[in-house]
């Protein structure tokens, strides 16, 4: 049977959703931003759609790395630092 969340945990869920929504939106915005930069570059150099495609790929990759960094790498490093601080 699924565990019911206590009232104190519910705001925590809203908080987490807000955080993840922000990171997700950053991913989408970074893809759109680099795609737009690529489009500007293509328009300037007359190479459409080379930099549009490249921009979309770079933007999506960078956005995903940012997401991965903030959700996986950063908490891991923080835990390691805290564990080191407690041991030391």
């Amino acid at each position, binding site marked *: 049977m699924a565990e019911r969340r206590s009232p104190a945990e519910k*705001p925590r869920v809203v908080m987490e959703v807000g955080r993840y*929504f*922000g990171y997700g939106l950053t991913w989408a*915005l*970074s893809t759109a*931003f680099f795609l737009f930069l690529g489009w500007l570059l293509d328009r300037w150099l007359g190479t459409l759609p080379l930099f549009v495609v490249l921009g979309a790929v770079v933007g999506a990759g960078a956005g995903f*790395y940012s997401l991965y960094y903030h959700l996986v790498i950063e908490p891991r490093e923080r835990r390691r630092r805290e564990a080191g601080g407690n041991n030391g």
Partner: protein
Amino acid sequence: MIGRLWPWLQAAEPQAEAAAAPAEGGGLTLGEMIMHHVTDSRELEIPFGGALRRIGLIDRTAIELPRFDPIQLGPVTLDLSPTKHVVFLFLAAILVAVVMIWTARKTHGKAAERAPKGVANLIEAFVIYLRDEVALRNIGHGGERYVPYVLTLFFFILFANLLGLLPWGATATGNIAVTATLAFLSLVLIEVSGFRTLGPRGYLRTIVFVPEGMPWYGKALMAAIMTPVELLGKVAKPFALAVRLFANMTAGHLVVLALVGLIFVAAPVASWILPVIAPVVMAVAIMVLELFVALLQAFIFAMLTSVFIGLIRHAH
């Protein structure tokens, strides 16, 4: 909410041609009338204006708001004339100030010896919950200085949302300029709190992304690509706040107005009973939901602002 459609309701005839173009004087369709009530305008509707005009007490059903000459600031032209949403913004601000000062008087000094009653007790419960469970819990140590902002934000948004649910009212938070300004204020507060807590060097590390364990050219490439992404990340969170509040408040009103409008669309082709009862029952249900949404959206805005302040203060 019926009051919002009152002028249209008074002009509407239970005939097919009236449903197609049923306006008081301008031949507006239902869609145009809904948009007229949801979007900003330069006039305020007078309660029962149509009825008052019919009995000859007033000439117009709305008050025209004053217009000021635009101010030229370099290439930017600023029109500071008040609109319907500006009036309701000020009304919300005045209400917040009055209610909060009144509650403070009821809960401090001699009055503090006894537990407050009624509305003061309700407001105190909100304030204590927001302070302990929202602001202090999410911001952490030193969060006390941000509590006034979080509380003001919550109550201001709540009052602005609730004013929009009153007949002849307007939802200032259903205007993207209002929600974007609130989000911008939160963004400034988040970044300033981050700068003050982390110091210039620590704050710069939240913008310029330099991964460790890479050769210098790898670091330079990653910094060039990831810095705009980090900057976008800073803007994305308040942007989401602004869009969420605006979309929720606008969508609820659109649904209620559309449901009430069904009465006039269906009336010419069906008996009066069915097209009136079904939309009214649905509109009342949505209004009850809107009351909850008004509270929830104010809570989410205040909570996420606290979360983002806490996140940047504990970054790196």
